[in-house]
C-alpha cells in the first residue's frame, strides 16, 4: 500500500512559490527523513501530506485516499514540533495526555473502559513510561515528554507516524533512546515513519529513505547511497556558507 503519494503538487504561500510539481511516494514500512535547511518548506511538505495545507495544484493521497476526503485519522500519528513549546504547566497527567487520543474511539459518553485503559498502558510500556502514568506531564524531562507524545499517537495503533523536528531540544542521550524507539516502531511494529529534520547528518544515518528539500523541488535518495556533502554543496552553492555545530 502507498502510505503517502504526492502527485505533481505545487504550493505557494503569499504568492511565494515553495514547491513546484513535486512527485513523491512513501511505501509501507519505510523510514523517511525529510531534510533541508531552515525555511526550506520541510514543515510545509509535512503539512501538505497531512492535509493541514491545501496545494494550489496537484493531488495528495494518504493511505490511497485523497487527503481532503480522508477519514481514517486514527491510523495517522502526528508528533508536533518541539514539545517544549507547549504549555508544560498544563494540569494533566501522562495517562490523561495519552488517553486524549482515544476520544474519537470512545462511545457517546466518552468514558474510559478497561480495554481503553489497557491500550494506554501498553503504549506507555512501549515508550518506557509505564510507571510514570500518574505523574504530571510538566514533571518529566524533555526527552520523556517527547515519549509521552509518541505514546499518545501509538495508543490509536497508527500505521504511519509523522514527526516534525523531533530532535530539536533533545540531548544526545535522549536522541539515542529516541532512535532506538523508532527502530522498535519501524522494524518490530511495522509502522511507517516520516520525520522532518534540519539535521542531515544524523537523519541520513538512521533512516532508509531521505527527501532533500531543494529549490521548489524534493530530491529523493536511498540513504545507503546518499552523501550529505553533495547535497549541502548543491543546496547552498556559492551563496551560502556551511555552519558546523556540535551536539
Amino acid at each position, binding site marked *: 500500500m502507498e502510505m503517502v503519494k504526492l502527485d505533481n503538487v505545487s504550493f505557494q504561500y503569499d504568492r511565494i512559490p515553495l514547491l513546484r510539481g513535486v512527485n513523491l511516494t512513501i511505501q509501507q514500512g519505510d523510514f523517511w527523513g525529510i531534510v533541508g535547511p531552515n525555511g526550506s518548506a520541510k514543515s510545509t511538505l509535512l503539512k501538505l501530506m497531512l492535509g493541514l495545507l491545501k496545494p494550489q495544484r496537484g493531488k495528495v493521497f494518504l493511505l490511497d485516499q485523497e487527503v481532503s476526503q480522508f477519514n481514517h485519522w486514527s491510523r495517522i500519528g502526528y508528533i508536533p514540533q518541539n514539545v517544549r513549546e507547549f504549555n508544560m504547566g*498544563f*494540569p494533566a497527567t501522562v495517562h490523561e495526555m495519552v488517553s486524549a487520543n482515544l476520544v474519537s474511539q470512545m462511545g457517546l459518553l466518552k468514558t474510559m473502559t478497561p480495554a481503553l485503559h489497557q491500550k494506554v498502558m501498553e503504549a506507555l510500556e512501549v515508550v518506557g513510561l509505564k510507571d510514570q502514568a500518574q505523574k*504530571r506531564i510538566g514533571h518529566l524531562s524533555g526527552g520523556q515528554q517527547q515519549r509521552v507524545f509518541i505514546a499518545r499517537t501509538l495508543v490509536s495503533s497508527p500505521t504511519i507516524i509523522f514527526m516534525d523536528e523531533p530532535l530539536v531540544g533533545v540531548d544526545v542521550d535522549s536522541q539515542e533512546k529516541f532512535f532506538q524507539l523508532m527502530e522498535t516502531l519501524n522494524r518490530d511494529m511495522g509502522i511507517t515513519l516520516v520525520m522532518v529534520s534540519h539535521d542531515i547528518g544524523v537523519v541520513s544515518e538512521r533512516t532508509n529513505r531521505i527527501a532533500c528539500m531543494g529549490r521548489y523541488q524534493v530530491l529523493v535518495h536511498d540513504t545507503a547511497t546518499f552523501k550529505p556533502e553533495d547535497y549541502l554543496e548543491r543546496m547552498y552553492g556559492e551563496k551560502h556558507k556551511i555552519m558546523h555545530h556540535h551536539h
Partner: protein
Amino acid sequence: MMPEIFNYGFMQRAFLAGMMVAVICPAIGVFLTLRRLSLIGDTLSHVALVGVAIGMLIDVYPVFTALVVTVLASFAIEGLRKSYPQYAELSLAVMMSFGVGMATVLISLGGSTGQVFSFLFGSVTLVTRQDVWSILILGIAILMMVLFFYRSLFYMAFDETAALLAGIPVKRINLIFTVMVAVTISLAMRIVGILMVSSLMIIPVAAALQLEGSFKKTFIFSLLFGLLSVTIGLTISFYASLAPGGTIVLTSLAILLGILLYKKVGGSV
C-alpha cells in the same frame, strides 16, 4: 429548623440560581484559562450590557437579549481576530470598547438607570422565578455539554492540531463552545453582575491550578471552589448586609489567597 437565611423566598431563589452559576462559570472558565483566553469573559460580559440595555428599551426579558447579543459578539470577535492574527487580544479590546460605548448610549436613551445597576453589580435578591428557571434549565444544558465535550475540549486546549488529527471536529466544537461561553455569561450576570462575571469564571480556576495532580482534579476543584465562593459569599452578604456579587468575588479571592499562602509556607496540595 431551617436557618433564618432560608426563610426568605428571595434567598432560596438566590441560592438555587447562585449554586448553578457557581458550577457552570468555572466549568467553562477552566477551558478558557487553559487556552489563554481568560480575557474573553471580561469582554463578552461588557457586551452583554448592550443586550441588557436593548432588552429594557424594547421591553423584552434582558437575559434573553443579552444572550443574543453576546453570541453575536463572540462570532464578531472570531472575525476580528482573523484581521489581526498577530494581536490576539486586540479583537477583545475593540469589542469591549464597542460594548461599553454602545451600552452607555443605549442606557442614556432609556432613562431609567436603576435596573441597569442591578445587572452591573448583580442583584441576587431581585432574582425572579423566571430567572431561576432559565438559569437552572440552561445551566444544566451547559453542564451536560461540558461533560460531553470534556475530553475534546481538554485535548484542544493543549494542542489543537493534534486534536484535529485525532479526529476531533475542532471547528464545530469551537463554535459550540463560543456559544456556551456567551450563554454562561448571560446567566451569571444576574447573580454576580456584569462587572464580576469573569471573576467567577477565572478565580476558582486560578485557585485549582495551584493544586497538584490530574486535570480531572483541577476541574473538580474549580467547581468546588466556585460553589464554596457562592455559598459562603451569599451567607456573609445576607448576615452582614453586604453587596452579594462583590462578597462572592472577594470570597473566591480569599480562597485563592489562602491556597497561595499555604503553598508559600511549604504545604503541599
